[in-house]
């Protein structure tokens, strides 16, 4: 048991565990994957197939209050349902991006699902990446303080956003891409931004092609050259401030849940840095 965890926290976590769908998902996920095995000839009925591809099911699961890395069964089901089903993946991506754009602290479920969908191997994987991460284009906004130079808006302030990452989703203009949400979160809610960074690095480190694609993305601000320069700088500043806050013995200076991600973030950053050097 964690020393800082109170009896109330423990009883709350037990209630959450008790009321979770995890055990149900474990068995459904196992049976769904069992039907894919070559040595057995059993198939799911059309009704079962329909249920397993129903986004409402996943929406309900994602609203459950799990902690980090407790979504193994959900991810297993996503892998089953998203296999060769682009429509399902698109619906899930829209749902996740929409919920992530609020930059709430309870974003872990959406990130877990998004990371699983991004890593599913299928023919239109690159299109899916474009949908999730967006493609870089020059940020354009109606701002009369900006001067047009060579057909582009140029801002005199280096800390103003200069690059946007547009998603290829034509569903609604109000849904930002994952990278755009990440940059927005760095202003709105730093703890959420750190959690999102952990998942971004996990995805990038998990697929070589995705790494090669994202490593060339430009920085959202003029100050840095590449996106990863901005990431390293952001994490450095965040940790320095965190350490400074701890000097004054304030353990709750940062969002408590975010502290759990610090070791994971360190590991992922090391792998990411090694990949860049290679």
């Amino acid at each position, binding site marked *: 048991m964690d020393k800082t965890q109170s009896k109330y926290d423990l009883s709350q976590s*037990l209630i959450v*565990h*008790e*009321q*979770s*769908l*995890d*055990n*149900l998902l*474990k*068995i*459904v996920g*196992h*049976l*769904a994957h*069992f*039907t894919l095995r070559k040595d*057995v000839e*059993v*198939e*799911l*009925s059309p*009704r*079962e197939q329909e*249920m*397993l591809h129903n986004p*409402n*099911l996943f929406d*309900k*699961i994602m609203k459950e209050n799990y902690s980090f890395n407790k979504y193994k069964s959900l991810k297993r089901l996503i892998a089953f349902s998203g296999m060769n089903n682009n429509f399902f993946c698109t619906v899930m991506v829209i749902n996740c991006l929409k919920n992530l754009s609020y930059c709430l602290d309870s974003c872990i479920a959406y990130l877990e699902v998004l990371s699983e969908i991004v890593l599913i191997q299928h023919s239109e994987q690159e299109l899916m990446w474009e949908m999730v991460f967006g493609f870089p284009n020059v940020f354009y906004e109606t701002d009369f303080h900006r001067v047009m130079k060579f057909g582009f808006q140029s801002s005199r302030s280096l800390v103003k956003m200069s690059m946007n990452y547009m998603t290829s989703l034509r569903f609604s203009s109000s849904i930002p891409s994952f990278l755009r949400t990440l940059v927005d979160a760095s202003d709105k809610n730093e703890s959420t931004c750190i959690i999102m960074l952990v998942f971004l690095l996990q995805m990038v480190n998990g697929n070589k092609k995705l790494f090669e694609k994202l490593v060339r993305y430009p920085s959202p601000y003029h100050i840095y050259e590449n996106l990863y320069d901005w990431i390293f700088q952001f994490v450095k500043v965040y940790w320095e401030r965190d350490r400074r806050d701890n000097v004054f013995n304030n353990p709750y200076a940062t969002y408590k849940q975010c502290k759990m991600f610090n070791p994971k973030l360190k590991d992922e950053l090391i792998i990411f840095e090694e990949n860049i050097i290679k």
Partner: protein
Amino acid sequence: MMKIISICPENSGEILRGEILNRIYGTLTLLLSCPDEAVRRWTSRLVTHLILVYINQFDVQLDPTFELKEDDIEKNPDFLNEPSNLVMTILTRMKGFKLDSSYKRMGPYFHMWYKLVLANDNIAIWMISKAKIIAPYLGNFVFEQTSSWTRPKASTI
């Protein structure tokens, strides 16, 4: 208790027949509607352990096409002496009650099925092809067509 069962696995058949199958209503009530989570969890573990020990001890080959008929047990007194029939009858009774309760208390029950399915492929095939559990489970528990918590009725078991 689980250790005792592991030490003398020859008696697991007797316990399954006498304590689980003959008292299936009581076992299911403990497993599904006991307010104490620890009791539900340990009942689930005990039942799972008993079934798996019995299958391993007697090397039971389960029939994935098994279907329990009403008069099987009455007409044939030796029906339950066959290890495969005994296990499949218990499993059929376990899943046979009306699924009208909320999923929120049924973690141990699902965990029991998960462990059984993981341990034996024939049980998995039976659950998909004959028992067809996925649709009612997801329908009743996730989409909550019925969300009220009720005790399983004796007549439905």
